[in-house]
């Protein structure tokens, strides 16, 4: 791992990555795999068999499972050793998150605890708060929850109405208000509660469950993840000492934003883990079900679905481990046990906010595709609760809503890009200007079938990057900061960025696999050819959509002409390629990498 270099967050938008800076899942350590195996065995043997009981909210069951998970160390990976944690690399934790997500509801319980329920203390807490709470959170003796949302403030979290009033003697805060949609509420022992100090200053507080005045509402009746607990948390004159503040008074928005950022990465990892299991179910079913005298897995339209699932998962997986690998390099430079290391930890965590936003919306949409088409492959049985797909379909849907809706994450992406550009952290305006100058001398090669197919995909990536840069640069030039008001354009730029990151990550991985002589490198090449060909066409459409929205008349025609020079979507027989990919999925009855 020592040789891995980590580029700044968002750099993929403006330059090609170094190959040897990229972690691919095939390179994960034996230790990471061993830990993932323990996790998978625990989920399969202890959690999945009690799904129905969890969904019936059997008293104490979730808490007991969390304790068992804690005993195995499954909740401690992200916490430094000095605070009772295991301090595991992010890449190891990513694989672990994938395995936990085999049980969708329990994954929400674990995620709400280890990520949003624990990290506010690690990243913003005082030494005393860390010493007091982290060891018990690491072991699962204390279960955490994160109480930000309210009935009237979800996406607009800062408009929360919950108030914290300082007592006249200045020693306590009195909390009043109602939080809504709080995961783990039924059994959590410790809540990170967001409230406005004196009605103005948005602040995070630690509130222990047994504090008088705190009560929990009934379980929400949900579409899916019914085995997780989601309730209101009602605060009526809840008195807490002033040292319960997490971070600074008035700086609660930082706590919320940083923590959600990490949660988003974990959500992407979970989406992949769940998708893996659903692809298994789908391929197996397609091999068993016979219609018109043949297994339905022999039909082109079913093969298309299976192949497309695998392709999207391949790109998601490549992005996840690439980002985790970068993070591991940066985290390796921080001594998390040192006092005052929190600033560095936060800076490193925030570095890949753009990538995290992509992983959140892209990952949840891959999962929804897999759940939806997996259900379709099951036909009527997919619609029946006797088969696993109906539950999976219901469970998957939440991922596009929480940890910031996918709309909010698309907007966040552009917001982050602009912020970094303004601060000089990302040379995007420079790159866009350079591109504009160079545009006339640009002559994209049209698809050349004799070329090395990996180089060919590399050329598509350059074209996609240029089209994205051009569209984003022109939107910025025309609209300035008002670009955020033209949300449709902002979202299109976010989608182009995501496709660029996905294709490039898959391509880098395919190159590494080819270089190492992996028998699965051919399959990887097919996957990125399929994905890349479609991506070029999509990016062409999105970029035309953007320039049409921001210009008209001759300007618009000029932009269109430039885009035609930049981008030449290739003609690729993706039918044959998908069938080839599907053959592997059908033969293995699993995700083929």
């Amino acid at each position, binding site marked *: 791992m020592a040789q891995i270099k980590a580029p700044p967050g968002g750099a993929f938008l403006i330059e090609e990555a170094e190959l040897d800076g990229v972690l691919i899942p095939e390179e994960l350590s034996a230790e990471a795999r061993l830990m993932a195996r323990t996790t998978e065995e625990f989920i399969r043997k202890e959690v999945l068999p009690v799904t129905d009981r969890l969904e019936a909210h059997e008293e104490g069951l979730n808490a007991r499972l969390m304790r068992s998970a804690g005993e*195995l*160390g499954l909740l401690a990976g992200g916490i430094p050793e000095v605070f009772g944690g295991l301090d595991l690399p992010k890449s190891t934790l990513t694989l672990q998150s994938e395995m936990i997500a085999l049980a969708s509801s329990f994954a929400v319980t674990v995620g709400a605890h280890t990520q949003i329920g624990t990290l506010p203390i690690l990243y913003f807490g005082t030494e005393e708060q860390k010493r007091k709470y982290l060891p018990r959170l690491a072991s699962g003796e204390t279960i955490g929850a994160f109480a930000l949302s309210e009935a009237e403030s979800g996406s607009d979290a800062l408009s929360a109405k919950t108030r914290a009033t300082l007592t006249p003697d200045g020693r306590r805060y009195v909390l009043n208000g109602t939080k809504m949609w709080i995961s783990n509420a039924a059994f959590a022992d410790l809540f990170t509660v967001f409230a406005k100090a004196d009605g103005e200053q948005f602040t995070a507080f630690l509130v222990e469950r047994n504090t008088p005045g705190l009560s929990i509402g009934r379980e929400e009746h949900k579409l899916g993840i019914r085995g997780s607990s989601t309730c209101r948390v009602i605060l009526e004159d809840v008195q807490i000492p002033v040292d319960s503040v997490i971070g600074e008074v008035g700086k609660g928005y930082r706590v919320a934003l940083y923590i959600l950022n990490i949660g988003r990465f974990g959500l992407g990892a979970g989406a992949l883990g769940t998708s893996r299991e659903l692809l298994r179910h789908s391929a197996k079913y397609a091999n068993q079900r016979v219609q018109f005298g043949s297994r339905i897995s022999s039909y082109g339209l079913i093969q298309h679905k299976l192949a497309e699932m695998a392709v999207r998962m391949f790109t998601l997986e490549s992005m996840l481990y690439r980002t985790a690998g970068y993070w591991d390099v940066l985290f390796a430079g921080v001594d998390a046990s040192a006092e005052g290391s929190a600033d560095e930890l936060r800076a490193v965590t925030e570095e890949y906010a753009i990538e995290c936003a992509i992983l959140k919306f892209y990952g949840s949409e891959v999962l929804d595709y897999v759940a939806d088409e997996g259900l379709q492959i099951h036909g009527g049985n997919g619609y029946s609760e006797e088969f696993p797909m109906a539950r999976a379909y219901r469970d998957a849907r939440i991922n596009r809503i929480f940890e910031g809706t996918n709309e909010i994450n698309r907007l966040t992406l552009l917001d982050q890009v602009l912020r970094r550009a303004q601060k000089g952290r990302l040379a995007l305006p420079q790159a866009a200007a350079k591109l504009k100058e160079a545009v006339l001398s640009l002559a994209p090669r049209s698809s050349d079938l004799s070329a090395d197919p990996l180089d060919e995909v590399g050329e598509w990536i350059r074209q996609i990057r240029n089209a994205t840069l051009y569209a984003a640069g022109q939107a910025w030039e025309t609209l300035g900061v008002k670009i955020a008001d033209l949300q449709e354009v902002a979202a299109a730029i976010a989608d182009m960025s995501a496709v660029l990151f996905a294709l490039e990550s898959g391509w880098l991985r395919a190159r590494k696999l080819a270089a190492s002589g992996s028998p699965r490198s051919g399959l990887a090449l097919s996957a990125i050819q399929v994905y890349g060909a479609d991506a070029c066409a999509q990016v062409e459409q999105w970029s035309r959509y953007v320039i049409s929205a921001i210009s008209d008349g001759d300007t618009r025609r000029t932009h269109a002409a430039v885009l035609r020079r930049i981008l030449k979507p290739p003609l690729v027989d993706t039918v044959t390629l998908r069938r080839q990919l599907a053959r592997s999925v059908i033969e293995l009855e699993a995700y083929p990498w």
Partner: protein
Amino acid sequence: MRILVPIKRTPDPNSLVRLTADAQIDLDGCKWIVNPFDEIALEEAVRQREAGLDAEIVVVSIGPEEAADQLRACLAMGADRAIHVCCNRSLEPIQTAHLLAAVVATEQPDLILMGKQAIDGDQNQTGQMLAGRLGWPQATFASTITISDNHTTAVVEREVDTGRETLQVRLPAVVTADLRLAEPRYVALPAIIRARNKPMANVAVDDLGGVPDCGVRTVGYELPPSRAPGVMLPDAASLAAKIREAVQ
């Protein structure tokens, strides 16, 4: 006392076994595990120690470089140290027994506890052949093991088709584990971390006298014919009808 637990790296039984175009076993993408019966043997050794037996537990594996991963897993389960005999070819049981006997000569264990068979070749011979080579007593298919306080004998219960048989063996001896001897634990993450620093020795096959020829050669592999696809029946009545049809 010292317990030696030989373990084998085997494919995960959930992995699909395929053949390559030239009829060799295609192991690409296959997951690898500690042979489950060996894992049971190791679990039993660790439990004996946890119950108060004063024992050093040594695991040994004869296998490719990657077998170090399985040895690490064993160290995390509770073995004290590991010996890795690096060997890239597949061995017949008599060859494995030969190499293990050479390891025994230097390690001088009081008990060899091993799986009754490996789930890849399903041969069920190595333990017996090893005991034969060493001239030690053997008790196969153990479902319980009780070691005497002075470490000179072990009482082994073995499950046979019609009931249970109890043997007493003088130590040192070879005991092979059956399915119900012990249920392997989850390998806890902190234990995996602690195992990072446990010693693992590398031994070359040549240092053990090399692999003797045994007169057996694998000539070919063939997959069973693929199963015809099943049909879903709506209810028990139609199942009964189908059976009647088939019987007639």
